[in-house]
């Protein structure tokens, strides 16, 4: 199974490096949204709850762009058939695609979060970088798991651009709440406070529950 996961991840990263169809679009969307918030809120900077909300709503919408693209090559270029003909566990495709989406999100956040800090965020986030990375990582696992599940479902339909956000965004509401509440204390004007442990727990539980759910149902999504 590890061999198949590595093969799919390597292939997807290679295709993305060559075509730039997902990450650059996610990045441009995020930065454009920060600029729009800057003008729409009519504020030079944001902090606390508002800053956390703006960051996470933007990242979730950007993630949807990546989710929509996640299985396009598999659908349009026969990748599903090629994979299904191989003697490998179908779960390998789920793990590989979730890993790829996680990597795309990490690449996005490597640029988008500093851009957010420069364009919109009032307080300096640099003191709280380790805590912020922890929250981002926990949330990204959840987005990757749910995104892969929804992406595999949406790609079977003709209207994946509509179906994916309609399914993904409601499923990610608990994740958005947990991530925003966990991030909010890191963006306080008076200086970063400790991340509430219960919201980290919420994110961890979300990852676990949806991970198990995806593990149980992903095979059925590949059935004809």
């Amino acid at each position: 199974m590890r061999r198949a996961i590595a093969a799919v991840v390597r292939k997807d990263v290679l295709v993305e490096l060559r075509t730039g169809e997902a990450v650059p679009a996610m990045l441009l969307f995020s930065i454009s949204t920060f600029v729009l918030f800057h003008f729409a809120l009519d504020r030079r900077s944001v902090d606390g709850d508002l800053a956390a909300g703006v960051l996470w709503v933007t990242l979730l919408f950007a993630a949807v762009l990546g989710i929509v693209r996640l299985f396009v090559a598999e659908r349009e270029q026969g990748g599903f058939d090629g994979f299904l003909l191989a003697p490998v566990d179908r779960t390998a495709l789920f793990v590989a695609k979730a890993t790829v989406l996680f990597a795309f999100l990490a690449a996005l956040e490597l640029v988008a979060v500093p851009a957010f800090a420069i364009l919109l965020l009032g307080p300096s986030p640099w003191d709280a970088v380790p805590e912020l990375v922890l929250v981002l990582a926990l949330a990204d696992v959840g987005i990757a798991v749910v995104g892969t599940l929804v992406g595999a479902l949406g790609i079977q339909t003709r209207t994946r651009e509509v179906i994916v956000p309609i399914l993904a965004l409601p499923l990610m509401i608990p994740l958005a709440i947990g991530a925003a509440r966990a991030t909010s204390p890191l963006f306080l004007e008076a200086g970063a406070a400790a991340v509430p442990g219960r919201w980290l727990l919420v994110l961890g539980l979300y990852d676990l529950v949806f991970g198990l759910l995806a593990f149980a149902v992903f095979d059925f999504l590949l059935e004809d």
Partner: protein
Amino acid sequence: MATATDGPAVALRDLGRAYGERVALAGVTLELPRGATLAVFGANGAGKTTLLRVLATLLRPHAGTAAVLGATLPREAWAVRGRIGLLGHEPLLYRDLSVRENLRFHARLHGVGEGRAAALLDAVGMARRADEPVRALSRGMAQRVAICRALLHEPELLLLDEPLANLDPGAAGAVAPLIGRESGAARVLISHDVELGLAEADVVLGLRGGRAEIVAPAGSVAVADVRELYR
């Protein structure tokens, strides 16, 4: 007790498959011994591609039974994945990857060494184009690479849908030893070239509207009988 390695290459009994209300295959019964070739004829929409996808384990049978290389589908499909080579309408290649990268990807999925891919590319005359992206290849060249992809893991059953489509005579000659009778694999061959198909076949299946109108040894089927399927 029979295992997934016993039995004929293909055994179908009253096989049926539908897409919603539309029946694509109904009541198809036949047996193909190991190492033999089944030629499938029929007009567009007769159910040929559906039959191939059922045999490839990509579609579930909706009626009857289907066994491939001794494994009953879909229950034992896992036992034959990796022993079937499918060459369909689509080459199953990623356009933005090079020829070599595509074959490397499929070789890894099948646990095959990269030397096999290099040898196949050489055999079909594509070694010099190995580093070009698939989107830059002509359809005939992509078809040659698709043949390499289908043969990487040395399958025991070859499912070939118009394998010589888009190939010039030179290329067709180059791939003949790989996908022809000399390959030693059992073959299911879809062809619209009636004479060629009959010459290659041991058993003939003629489909019309998803139903088997001809199921017979190749020696007992006349060209005119097959041509009648297209009227």
